[in-house]
Each structure stands twice: as structure tokens, then as C-alpha cells.
């Protein structure tokens, strides 16, 4: 057997090792009621902001405490506490990805990724003055 072959086999072994260890590294998208979340494991939850429920953030009181309610993809609602400042334009977010774990009644997020399509791409046509014109005409 040539050295190169040994090296090649070694590399394949390492590559398989990485694939196997990925099984312990990847995380999953869960819902608030799934077993993993209930067990207090760290995972990711995708959902939308519940706009009717209160958002709490008072920079003067605690600049690193922000709470809100989120509805996950199966429709379960939960209170979410984020130890950080309130992301700007949070109200306008279209979808939210939380990373964190359940702590008592609330989901404690250590990372929030919000998708705010309007931030990058405005799907709505915004035209100055058009509304008034159509109103006077009709």
C-alpha cells in the first residue's frame, strides 16, 4: 500500500468522522410544545410576532430586557424573553427565528433572527398622491 493511499484512507475516515459528529451538532426547528423544548433543550423556533399582545421594553429600566409573544408554526403562543435590546422595527417583522430554551413559562431567547422583507424589498407599491386622486374621481 502506498503512502498516498494511507493518507487518502485517513482523510476518508476524518470525513466520515465529521459527518457522524454533525449528528450531534445540528439543531432542529421545533414548536413551543414539542418534547425537545419541554425538556429544556436549546433549539430554534420559527414563528410570527403576536401583535395584539404587549411588547415590553423600557430602555431606562433595563436596556437588556425585551419581552413579547410569538406564535409558532403550529399556532402555539408563548411569551419570549430576550436579554438584549429590542431590535429596531421589530413590529414590522414578518417571521422570527428564535434560538434559546424554555425557562418556566417563557422561552428565553439568546438570539433573534428576524426576517423583515420590507427592509430589503418593498412588495407594496408606494405611490405618492395616488390615493387622493382616485378618491376625488369616484
Amino acid at each position, binding site marked *: 500500500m502506498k503512502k498516498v493511499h494511507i493518507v487518502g484512507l485517513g482523510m476518508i475516515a476524518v470525513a466520515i468522522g465529521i459527518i457522524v459528529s454533525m449528528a450531534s451538532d445540528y439543531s432542529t426547528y421545533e414548536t413551543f410544545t414539542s418534547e425537545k423544548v419541554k425538556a429544556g433543550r436549546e433549539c430554534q423556533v420559527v414563528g410570527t410576532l403576536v401583535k395584539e399582545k404587549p411588547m415590553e421594553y423600557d*430602555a*431606562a429600566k433595563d436596556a437588556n430586557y425585551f419581552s413579547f409573544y410569538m406564535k409558532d408554526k403550529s399556532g402555539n403562543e408563548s411569551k419570549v424573553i430576550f436579554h438584549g435590546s*429590542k431590535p*429596531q422595527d421589530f413590529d414590522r417583522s414578518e417571521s422570527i427565528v428564535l434560538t434559546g430554551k424554555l425557562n418556566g413559562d417563557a422561552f428565553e431567547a439568546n438570539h433573534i433572527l428576524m426576517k423583515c422583507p420590507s427592509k430589503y424589498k418593498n412588495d407594496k407599491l408606494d405611490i405618492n398622491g395616488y390615493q387622493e386622486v382616485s378618491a376625488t374621481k369616484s
Partner: protein
Amino acid sequence: MIFENEFTLPGIAGQLCVITAFAGSLVSAVAYFISTQSKDETVQLSWKKFARLVYAIHAIAIAGIVGILYYIIHEHRFEYNYAWEHSNLQLPYKYLLACFWEGQEGSFLLWMWWNMVLGFVLMLRAGHKWEAPVLTIFMVVQAFLASMLLGIYFGDYKVGSTPFNLLRNVMVEAPIFQRADYLSFIKDGNGLNPLLQNYWMVIHPPILFLGFASTLVPFAYAMAALWKKNFTEWLKPVLPWSLFSGAVLGTGIMMGGAWAYESLTFGGYWAWDPVENASLVPWLILVAGIHTLLAFKKSGHSLRSTFLFFILTFVLVLYSTFLTRSGILGNSSVHAFTDLGMSGQLVFYLAALTIPAIILLAINWKKIPSPQTEEALASREFWIFIGAGILFISAFQIMLYTSIPVYNTIMEAFGFKNANLAPPVDPKSTYNAYQLPIGVLILILSSFALYLKFKKSDMKIFWRRMIFITVISSILATTIAWFGDLFFPTWFALLFASVFSITANLYYFIIVLSGKLRISGPALAHFGFGVFLIGVLLSSAKQHTISFNYRGIDFGQKMSEKDLHENQYMPRGSRENMGEYAVTYMGDSTSEPNHYYNVRFERIDSSTKQVIESFVLHPNAQINPKMGLIANPDTKHYLTHDIYTHVTTVPDKTDEDAQQVAADSFKEHIISKGDTIFTSNSFVILENIEKVEKSNRVNLEAGDLLVGAKLSIETMDGKKISAEPLYYIHNGVAEPIEERISELGLVFHLSKIIPDDSKVQIDVAEIKPEKDYIVMKAIVFPGINLVWLGVILTVSGFVVSLIRVFRRRNSISSIQVSVGEV
């Protein structure tokens, strides 16, 4: 219906150019293909001539697309979706180009443009033997790219998306487009994402895409070599191309890092974000390919892996494009992805180029020459091979993990419901856990491999030098670790390996190469990599937040939760402690569209309590009515470290101006110079009444008169603020121009001037005071300059090697010696 003021000619011309570019690349590919396959030299030549002609037409068409698109954006022709979506009237001239690559179509156009330029260079330099096969591959790729801009339906399937779409054809449902005069209502475009309005964003994408485009050259040569069964000669022209590609792609990637550091707020230059990974992985494989190429050139070994690496580099560029352009990454990246519904097309092209390449390589694998003798353990080529293997493993791990969202799609395609794999919870530490040991190995390898000679080395000298370098670098590393508190095992391993690499490559440069810069490309690149990783180590291990919020929170025993309070509340005027600084938020200023928050940093000497240094940072936020608030950091640069700040929350001031003050809430005061007005929270002294020649609150015209009352306000806690309400006479009509001091809730009007008594009437209203504050974050990045320096040195190493290749070629050809060795 005829739409008023619509200018459709450029769109039609542009679309014609797109079709011409697409058709031209196909025809040129076919012509080059026939030329390659033909045995007869005259047939070869005539087809080649024809292919070149079509290529020229294709090139003109691409230039036409670029020119017309530029015209549409420059002239603000908002009837075109591209101009409307990516630009607006306020956009500064210098960012017009950035509009091109905000959209997907523009990115493909940029890529095509570079391919076209590189194709011309190849035509001039490739020589008769290689031009036809290499450009066949080129033009096939170019046809794929051009088809991404077609926007034409074949049956129900839409191929590509054209940048020349009219807005009314994109938003078909909007009722406004029923009107012939719809354009008169579309006053302005959507505007360019403020994050892209940055000089890095003007230069980073073109360089990155030149890097991506240039990886096609080694790929096309490799394919041509397999096709023509000419397995070795292609490496000579590919060497400079691959060095060029490595330098440009590397620069492009790190410019992206510099942009992220300077204008994004995730606090760093690298976050293992899928978009970053997708550009890094092809570079790693490309570098592996450059190394095996060199090993082959000197020893005859590693030819097969060179083929593999150069093919893989381009395949990975395509795969990266698929990842970042198909929307498949969805939830896993902070970057914006626009899915134009072309993922099917991208998958098809990926397969259409990858599968033939792999088949071609597989059937020729045994025919590719490989020496019977083994590499010696004490030879440079053996360790180059190992190093390339480690680079491959590095790329493999990054790609495997970045692709996690792809597995969901694949599983769903095979009928698994609810595939819910998500990227690692903490990507930074997960990727670092693999890449840090790999970095250590690469550093060590890239240091000692240079001391080994190709084929056979004298091990006695080798070991003597290695021992010397190990001793020196152990001492240095321990000293640095002592001062920097870096004895944590993984940190120390990286520190030692970096110092080892720096020492070894410096020693090699000075002693072995006797300081000849001309031939020290590899040593310089490896040295730079060592410097880079020391910078990475210091800026990540020793990075610390100084903006801890202590207000209203009792940490008690939970000091570990300090990490959760990295955003500091800063009321205006209050001096807060941050590390060795006393920091004061002094107020904001506006320079549309940016709001600058002026934050003063004062370094206090701990014993004398004297301010020894003072500077003001201006982290800003762009409050864009359409896109919301976008924060931009500001950084104080020192040689040894940076202080990086950005605002995370600011009070919403948008309705402050709208706060109307009822007329009856004003109290009249008729006073003269030196008199005092008392309010509920302050007293106000009239200091002077004077004619004002210039003001940024009023646009003065000839014949106007402007008078100001200089007021000095002193609050109960002794703070002094000045104010100046104005009295403005324009065309004989007098009008007071108010002065509002939001933080005290005071509104002043200078409503009458009584010249006889030299008195004035000042009306004062009290409204609810506005709280002025910011929430900000400040991070110290030590050693960040080593990161940039390391990148510059590494890229310089590529450039030095590239110059050397050219010099040798020129000197060889000038003395008419047959070229045996490059």
C-alpha cells in the same frame, strides 16, 4: 392603451442585447466545439475565426446590457422595475453602480461581464492549441449565465429574469397601471438598501465576482485537457491564472469581511454565515489546487488531485450560487435572499456542468499520468499533498454544515414530512471547533514544508533549523501568552502555531532566500497567514464588551449573567463608565438621511483622575421611511486595537416634529436684553437680539430680514443650553420661526420686535419633555489590524508569485529557449 411618458425603447434594446448575448454564446460555443473536434487545420481555423466573430458580437451585447441598464438607473426611469426597486432620486451618484448588484439579475450580469473580459484575454494568450476547447467550455457557462437574464417563457416555464421588466408588468395586479398616466404618480423609486450604500459595497462585489469568474479558467482548462487527452500541458498556462484567481477571490472575500466589520452590527468581520462560507469554500479548494499543481510541476506527483481540485473549485462556485440565490437557506442567514423562482434552473445548470465533468474525470482517471515511485516522506511534494488534503477537509466540513438546510429539501423530496434540521445553535463555536485545529495544522505544515526540498531533502539541516525555530517560537509564544493571558489550551495551540509560522517563514525569507523578495511569494503568503491567524486569535479571544449596563439591575450572585447586559442605556449628558473610559452621549445631529449620535469617550488616568485622551465617535442610524432604522457602527482605530460602537436602540423621534403646540398654551413675555423668563424647570436669559446673516433653518433670499433672540437657558441642575428663536420677514410678511428644546419640553417663538423700547416679545410654551437617550454597545477588538495586515501580506504573496511566473516566461521567450520548466 398608450402609457404617457413611458420610454420603452431602452427596454426593447436591452432585451435584444440579452437575447443576442445568449444566442451569441451558444453559437460561439458550437463553433468552437466544431473547431476543436475537427482534424483538418483549415476547417479548425475557419470555425475558430467564426467563433471569434460571434464572440465579439456577444461581448458587444453584454456591454450593451450594462450600458442600457446604467442609463435606466442613471436617468431614474422608474417605469422599469429594476430602477424603481433598486434606486431612488436621492441616491448619491457614487452608489449608482451598487444598484447593479443589489438585484440578482445584476449579479449575474456582473459575472457574465467578467467572464467576457477573461474570455478576451484567453483568446489573446491561450494559443492555437487551447483556445478552441477552453473557450467552448467558457461559452457554455456563459450561455447558462445569459439565460438567467432571459425572462422568457418556454411553455409554462419561465427561464431567467430580465432586468428590463417594466414595473407595470411586474405588479400586474396594482390598479394604478390601468391608467395611462400612471407614471406621473410614480415619483420616486424604492431606493437602495442603506447597508449597500457604503464604499466597500461599490468595490467588494466586482472583485468578488472577478474572483468567482476567474475560477472558470482553471476549470475550463482542466475540462479541455481531459477532452483533448492532453493531460499535462494545460498546467503551464493555468498556474498564473490560478494564482490570479486566488489573489482576487481572497481579496474579495476579506473585503466582504471589512464591509461587515465597518457597516454591519453583528460585531466582527466573520460570522460563519452561509454567504461567507459559500465564498470561502471554493477559495480553500482553489488554494489546494495551486499547491498540488506546484507539487506536480516539480515532482510529477499529484496530477490527478490537481484535476480534481480545479474542477471542484468551479463546481463549488456554482453550488454556492445555488445556495445563496435559490432561497433554500431561508431561515439560516442574516443576509437577504431574493428568490426569483429560478432554483430549478440553477440546479439544472449545476448538474449539467458537474455530472459531465465528473464522468470525464472518472473515465480518464487511470490515463492521467502518475509516477510509479512513491513520494519520499522527506520531500516537499508529500507534505504539500497532505496540506491540500487538510484544506479539502476544512472545506468539506464548512460545506457539509452550511448545507444543512438543503438536507431538509432533499428529505422532503423523498417523502419525509416535516424535516426540521436547523443549523447549529451557535455557529461560531461549532465551526471554530473544527477549523481551529485545522488552522493549527495548516500553520505548522506551511512552515516546515518550505524547508523540505522537492524529491529529496537533507534531513540533518532540516532538523537543525526546525529545532532552532521551535525554541525561538516557544519563547515568543510563551511571552505573548504571559502578557495576553492566553494559556487556555486551544488559544495557546493557535498562538504557538502562528508564531511558529511567522518565525519559520521569516527565517526562510532572510536566511534561506537571502531576502530576495522576487522568489519569496510562498514564504510571504504563509507568513501573512500566520499574521492573519494571530490577529484572528487576539481579536476573538481578547475581544471584550465594555458597555455593560448596571442601571437598575442587581447582578448579585449571578455575575455570569453579566453577558446578558451588553447594551448600555445612555441618557443624554450623563457620564457613564465603560472600561477605562468615561462615556457621554452628547446628543444627535442629522445629515439626511443619517442621524449621528455623538458619543464622547474620555480616558481617565486611574491615579490622577485626569482626562488623558478624549475623542468623539459618531455611530449613526439611517432612519429610512421605507426600510426602517439601519444602524451603522463607528470605530476608533488604534494601532493595537479598535473600539467599535453602534447604537442598538434609539427613541422614536418621528412624531416629535408632528407634536403641534396649541396657540393658547403660549405665554407672552415682553422683555429687553438681560431680562429673565422663568419656566417650570429652568430660567431663560435674553442675551442679545441681533440680525442673522445665515441660518440653516431658513433659506434666505435677497431683501429678506432675519432677526434672532439669543437665549441662554439654565436648568435647575445647573446645565446650560442655548436657544435662538428667529423672526423672519419675507416679502414684507413677518413670521416667527420656533426653537424647540425637546429635552426640557420648551418651545420659543420670537413673535414681535418693538424697536422703540428695544424690547421683544417672546412666547414660551411648555410641552412634555422628550427623553433623549440611546442604547449602545461598545466592543474592544485587540489586534484587528493584524487581521487586515495578514490578508494584505497573504495576497501579496500570491501577487509576488504571479509576477515571478510572468518574469520567467518573458525572459525565457526572449532568449528563445524552449520552455521545459516554469
